Every structure is written in structure tokens, then in C-alpha cells.
């Protein structure tokens, strides 16, 4: 059974169609990649699935575990088992890493909090009491956000540009975690325009101007993306909320 179904999904922002009659089925326990050029609607699709503010006035349906989630709030969707890791994680003045992670953790014990920090390559004693604020680098905040999603133990995780702001060695760690999540049965959706990230997926969906262009195995989609998209002079209408 499809774990997550996007059915005839259309979303217009400021009169421009950003998602245009999109149909995609995501399978449980797989790593999926949504790939496409800038402004194709990739992040918008992730935000719409998560139900972020401004992304709820849709046409079509989104079914999660066989149930329509149209109209559900972000936290209701999260409590059903899905979450989103942002391209640029939020900063929280004064909020300690341990409290940030514990807030979403299924297991709130110290051991569990330490465990997820270690999994993302951060030494707990160096980070637990630090604030999730501008004193952390973008890469550190990304790892802490990832730790918080691991602590939540979601059934579905949407990763928006997981390589953004990450150095090469950290990126390898993140790729390992993505595969660990898959081994744990978590369904992963990677939003990317990076071929390195795309290669981590089991299969991919190529979208452009909010429409599904192609889908299939990674080799096929990579080739299409490299040969057709990178040289294409088509200009997408960007999501005005993403690029205010």
C-alpha cells in the first residue's frame, strides 16, 4: 500500500500555480528523492505535505497511511508520524540543545538524548547545554535538527536540501543516518537538486514547474536531470513565500 499519496495536488500562490496537478505515490520504508531545478516546486511540495502556514489552501488530496490529511494542522500531522527538517534550521535564543531535542523525543531520558547527539556526530557534553542560537554554525544547527528528528522516531521524514550548509565529512554522516533511518523502517523523502544527495535514494521523482516530469530509478533520473535540466533555459516561477 502507498504510504503517502499526493493526488492531483495543485497549489497557487499569488495567482501563480506552484504545484500543478501533481500525482506521486511514496512507498513505506523507501528513500525517495524529489529532484528538480530551482523554483520547480520541490520545497513547496514538502511544505504542503507538512501543512505549513500558507500551504494549506490546496486542491487535490494528500493521503498519509490511507487517511486524508487535508486540513490537519502541522502538529496533528506530526503526531501521525511525519516531520520536516528544514533547509535552514531555526535558531532559538536561549533554548538549550537538550531541551530542544527532549521536547520532541519519544524517549526523554538523558541516555536517549545523548544517543541521538552521538548519532549525528556531536559530543553530548559539548552541546547539551548550549543554546540553539547563532553561536552554533549552520552545520551544527543542521545536525541538532537532525538529532531532534531522530529522537522523535518519525515514520516519515521530509528532508529539505539535507546537504545545504554541510561540509563533506558531515554530509557523509548525514547520508549514513538517512540509511539508518531506512533500516529502522522510516520513509525518507529527500528534497534536492544535488546529484550526490539524489544518489542516496532508492528512486526519484523529477519535477519542474510544479508538474511531475519523470520518475524511476536513480540512474535514469540523474541522466535526465544532467542532460535535460541543467542546460534547459526554462525559468520556473519561484514560490514567493520561499523567496520573499
Amino acid at each position, binding site marked *: 500500500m502507498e504510504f503517502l499519496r499526493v493526488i492531483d495536488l495543485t497549489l497557487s500562490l499569488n495567482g501563480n500555480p506552484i504545484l500543478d496537478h501533481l500525482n506521486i505515490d511514496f512507498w513505506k520504508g523507501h528513500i525517495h528523492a524529489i529532484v528538480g531545478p530551482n523554483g520547480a516546486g520541490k520545497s513547496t511540495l514538502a511544505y504542503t505535505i507538512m501543512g505549513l502556514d500558507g500551504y494549506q489552501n490546496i486542491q487535490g488530496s494528500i493521503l498519509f497511511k490511507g487517511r486524508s490529511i487535508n486540513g490537519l494542522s502541522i502538529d496533528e500531522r506530526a503526531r501521525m508520524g511525519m516531520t520536516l527538517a528544514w533547509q535552514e534550521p*531555526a535558531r532559538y535564543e536561549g533554548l538549550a540543545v537538550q531541551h530542544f531535542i527532549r521536547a520532541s523525543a519519544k524517549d526523554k531520558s538523558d541516555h536517549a538524548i545523548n544517543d541521538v547527539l552521538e548519532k549525528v556526530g556531536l559530543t553530548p557534553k559539548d552541546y547539551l547545554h548550549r543554546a540553539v542560537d547563532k553561536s552554533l554554525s549552520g552545520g551544527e544547527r543542521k545536525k541538532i535538527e537532525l538529532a531532534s528528528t531522530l529522537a522523535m522516531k518519525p515514520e516519515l521524514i521530509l528532508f529539505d536540501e539535507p546537504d545545504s550548509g554541510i561540509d563533506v565529512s558531515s554530509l557523509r554522516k548525514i547520508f549514513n543516518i538517512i540509511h539508518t533511518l531506512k533500516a529502522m523502517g522510516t520513509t525518507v523523502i529527500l528534497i534536492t537538486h544535488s546529484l550526490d544527495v539524489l544518489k542516496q535514494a532508492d528512486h526519484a521523482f523529477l519535477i519542474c514547474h510544479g508538474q511531475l516530469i519523470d520518475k524511476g530509478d536513480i540512474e535514469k533520473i540523474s541522466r535526465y536531470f544532467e542532460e535535460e535540466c541543467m542546460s534547459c533555459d526554462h525559468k520556473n516561477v519561484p514560490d514567493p513565500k520561499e523567496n520573499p
Partner: protein
Amino acid sequence: MDIDQIYKAANLLSTFHDPEAPKLSINLNRVVDSQLTKGLDVDTRETESGVDVQINIQKGVVISRPVHLCFGVTDEQAVQRIKMDIHVEEGAQIQVMAHCVFPQAVDVKHLMDAVITLEKNARYSYLERHIHSQDGGISVIPNARIHLGENARFRTDFELIQGRVGLIDMNYETICAAGSVMEMTAKINGTHDDIIRIHETGHLNGQSARGVLTTKVAVRDRAKAEVHNKLTASAPKARGHVDCKEIIQDQGTAVAIPIVEVNHPKAHVTHEASIGSVDSRQLQTLMARGLSEDDAVELIIQGLLS
């Protein structure tokens, strides 16, 4: 309610029962406990509605353990007037933790007038933590005038994040001599119809004096906050910064009035102030982890005020 219940409300039982801990405990207008340490002189005089306190730290004395002060009112209705005169002699150092505990307050006024003087090279750190009832029937009106001698260091943190604020109207002013350092921070969480008024002023009068005024306030429901931060710099290499952050939710209102005044071409003062709702990205991230909107807002505010 006895004094132990005040200690319990403030989680201070072990501190105030520690025979070695330097402390002074006042319930309304009575000194109920006092423990001094070498080099720390404390003189108290009970008045009709409070206590006059004189504290002197002798020259060169470094008091390694924090000195705990407890100002409590166990009554539901009362006026408490505290006068403090604190003198830190040359090179002396002290860290004071003041606990202002009003767990039963229905109509209580706590008035504090303090004069704090730090001589050359002295250090004084003052954490003032308020624990109030949930009733909101309390008015806290602290005034302090602080004089810093050459190379003195002064730090004060005012926290009112447990229980209802009621009315707070604080006014602190610090005058800084050459090479001295001043940090004044206030963190207050207002709800219901609480009223918060903060006036913090620093005068960097001496060469290379430095100062930071930091205010963090959250106002929810119908609470109102008004923050006046003023920092003046009048000497070469004087450096200062004013930072005011206010979060508003519901029908809360907030005003920030930062004033920076520079009277010397080699002095430099900066300021930043922000007032607004909880950041949407912060909120949605926590909601995407399964927190309700209310719980997410609470966590963000607790972080800001932590």
C-alpha cells in the same frame, strides 16, 4: 505560613538550613535569620513596614560562597519597604543571590531602594529572582543607584519568570568610572493583565568604561510592557550596547524605547531592539515535532527567558 514555607516555595530549604552559608532572611519587617562570614558586615534595622539593611564588604575580602538574601512576605496583604546600602570596598568581591518570594500575595507592595557603591577594583554580582503567587495582586517597585569605581565590575540579573508579575516598575541607574564594567539584565514573563515597566540607565563616564543593558520580556494575554533603556558614553574608548527583545502574543502590547547618547568622538554605543510575535519558523519547527502551538510558544519563551 512560616519562613520555611517561603524557602520551600523558592526551593531554598537546603541553602537556608546550611549553617555555613552566608545569608540574611527577612519576612516582611523582621530579620528571621542571619549568618555572616569573615569580612562581610551586615547591619539591619527593623522599621514599621520593612528593614533597612547596610552591607559592607571589607577591603580586599573575597567572599567565595554566594551570599543569599531572602525577602519574603507570607501575608496576603502587606507593604514591605526595604532600604539597602551596599558598599564593596577596594578590591573586595561578593556574589549575592536575592530571592524575593511572595507566595500568598493578594495585595502586596514590595518597595526596594538600593544604593550600591563599588570602590576601585571591586566586584559585585547580584542575581535577583522573584517568585510570586498566581494571583497577580503584587506590586514590585525596585529602585537602585549604582556607582562603580575605577576598574570595578558590576553585574545584575533580574528574573521574574515564576508566578504572576502583577505590576513591576523598576528603575536602575549605574554610573561607571574609568575601566569599569557594567552588565544589567532583566528577564520578565508577563501574563493576564500584568504591567511591566523597566527603566535601565547606564552612564559610561570614565575612559574605557564598558556596559551592556539587556532586557528580555514576554507578554501574553493582555499584559503590557514598556522598556526604557538608556546608555550614555562620555569618555574615550567607552563602549556600550543595548539589547531589548520583547515577544508578544494574544492581546499583549510592548513598547521599547532605547536611547543611546554619545558625547565623545572616541566612544561607541550600539543598540538593537525587536518586538514581535514568536518567529514563525521556530514555531512551525516545534509543531512539526508534534508540539501543540501553545506548548511550542511556551518552550520558545522559556528559552528566551532562561
